[in-house]
């Protein structure tokens, strides 16, 4: 099946290729194949598929990646506004098929 893509040109993902040491960790953790490795550096190749989960930034040892991570969840954002806090998802069972 074709990959689903959300809104284009919105994500806050940034990669500093000069800092990157080419370890490949971001390729392993990203669930949407956003990165590719070539010439011993990671490159963003599918930016618009990024869901801002933050896994890549958290697992990059040299902090070459930054992203404003959070839950892309409307109910969570509404909760956040009502409680005057960060968006928090009630998280319906959605993602439980994963291991």
């Amino acid at each position: 099946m074709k990959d689903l893509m959300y809104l284009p040109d919105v994500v806050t993902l940034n990669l500093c290729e000069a800092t990157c040491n080419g370890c490949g960790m971001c390729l392993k953790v990203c669930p949407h194949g956003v990165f590719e490795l070539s010439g011993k550096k990671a490159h963003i190749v599918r930016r618009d598929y990024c869901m801002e989960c933050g896994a890549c930034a958290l697992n990059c040892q040299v902090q070459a990646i930054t992203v404003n991570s959070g839950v892309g969840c409307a109910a969570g954002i509404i909760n956040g506004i009502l409680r005057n806090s960060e968006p928090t998802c009630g998280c319906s069972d959605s993602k439980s098929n994963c291991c």
Partner: protein
Amino acid sequence: MKHSFLEGNVSISDDVIPLVSTRINFKDFMGAVMVRWGINRDNYRISPGLYAFGNPDQESDVFVTANYKLTFDNLRKNLSGLDGWILVLDTKGVNVWCAAGKGTFGTIELVNRIKLVSLEKFVNHKRLILPQLGATGVAAHKVKEETGFNVHYGPVRASDIKRFIRDGYRADKEMRRVTFGFKDRIKLIPNDFIYGKFYLLGAMAVIFLISGVSSKGFSYKDFSGEGGPGILKVFLAYFSGIVITPMFLPYIPGRHFSLKGFYAGVLVFLILIFLKFTGGNVFEIISWFLIITAISSFLAMNFTGSSTFTSLSGVKKEMKISVPLQIGFALIGTILMVVGKFI
């Protein structure tokens, strides 16, 4: 409570570790069905700690997971025929991905749990296998620093674990991708359906009250005459946002979930018109158009939280445009409906 998945114990020197079955029995199955419908959801957890499966020894792999029973069941049934250890983190009964997002499936909990169970007593290697989606909460290099254990991110789906191990702890591109196919989406519907019940009841109550209004004042006769069809229309709008939109998500035009929900609502509205189910009054027809599409759009927008590819920045951007429109539609629709009664 004694869990039916426990098969006994294994003793390693002085320690007794519970042995779990890799088979899912009828009770596990029924529990899963109920949980999908929101029954007993907050209680569906197991105790954190170390478990054994098969016939493990010091060389066996250690799989890390969450203490949501559905997640735990899904892992152990995919480990049948293997021997090893399962380290269950305390994620407050939440699945791996969501818990990782909240940080409960996280570096600190993993490091503490490794120390708490003295994992090094049971294995003489340093391999931990984590579900890939746990990476949102766990920094592999920090775990290594603190405990010496190497985090290996396994595949996204537990069903790929055996292949992952066979391939020398390597996951191919496809095993690393999150998908969101028809089956994935269908499974979520019952829960979302129950989750949104207050929206449904609220909207139904408003429509019911309005149905009692007429130029002659407030009457119970109108309640019974118009209330029923009104409530049915609200229900169809709910169905459109919570069932139709998720089911046909990739095929409905637009990228914004609220726009997809709007289109689904338009479809429901057109069907109602076709069935001559919207009344003859122009005000009433327009008001139903606005109300049905507003409800459907709002609920479809909420499906962003269940989907696996929406970003926070994107949802914020979507809501800036959609929420004012939804509120406007619902308000104008309600006003027109009342006005229509007096003309």
